[in-house]
């Protein structure tokens, strides 16, 4: 692609699993793509304590917020594309929860844009996780971590996103 082309931005919120390799391949197409970064967030069992997680979301707003952050990433770094997929519903330990793929001519922009997208998605996208214990009963809602706010805060997005 040339620098004049708009980056490909694709945001999806879905219950179904996603195919990491297929999504990465979509962004690696083109003769000027030199770097593709993928980040996959996976549901942990926490040492066998959990069966998985139940993810609630705010339909419509979830897509809007992730798209807004992806567009901001494309303004900040010269990326040729960004894909973000976030699942909702019941997710078993070992299954994928979230995928971010970014592509650029050089690795720096792709790494930075992917990290920015994940940091901001965690604090702005309306999703809430609840634990499901190993015996299948519903556990507590997961509490937000101050560390996530700190990670997002270092990008200084608050003013940019208003």
């Amino acid at each position, binding site marked *: 692609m040339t620098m004049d082309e708009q980056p490909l931005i694709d945001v999806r919120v879905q219950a179904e699993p996603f195919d990491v390799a297929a999504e990465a391949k979509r962004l690696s197409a083109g003769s000027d793509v030199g770097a593709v970064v993928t980040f996959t967030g996976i549901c942990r069992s926490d040492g066998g304590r959990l069966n998985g997680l139940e993810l609630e*979301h*705010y339909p419509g707003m979830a897509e809007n917020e992730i798209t807004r952050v992806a567009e901001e990433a494309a303004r900040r770094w010269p990326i040729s594309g960004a894909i973000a997929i976030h699942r909702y519903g019941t997710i078993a330990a070992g299954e994928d*929860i979230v995928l971010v793929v970014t592509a650029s001519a050089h690795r720096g922009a792709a790494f930075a844009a992917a990290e920015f997208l*994940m940091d901001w998605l965690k604090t702005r996208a309306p*999703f809430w*996780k609840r634990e499901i214990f190993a015996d299948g009963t519903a556990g507590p809602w997961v509490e937000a971590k101050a560390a996530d706010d700190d990670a997002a805060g270092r990008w200084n997005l608050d003013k940019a996103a208003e």
Partner: protein
Amino acid sequence: MKLLYFAWIRERVGQAEEDIDPPAAVRTVGDLVAWLRGRGEEFEYAFGNETVVRAAIDRTHVQLDTPIEGAREIAFFPPMTGG
């Protein structure tokens, strides 16, 4: 206007959504939270700690001092834990 509740706020309130018609004196999101808290124990339980509650008007994040005039849909939810 329509109110939406998510996660543990939804569970404490005991419903996912409702239509409301607050009095004219309720001008901001913070006013609305205060008014909701006066509606019963379940709302006091859900909104008792207003520093924790997050809000969105028509699917955009807002602060407690944001005016609610013209809002079609106001959502209340705990801090987000996606990703």
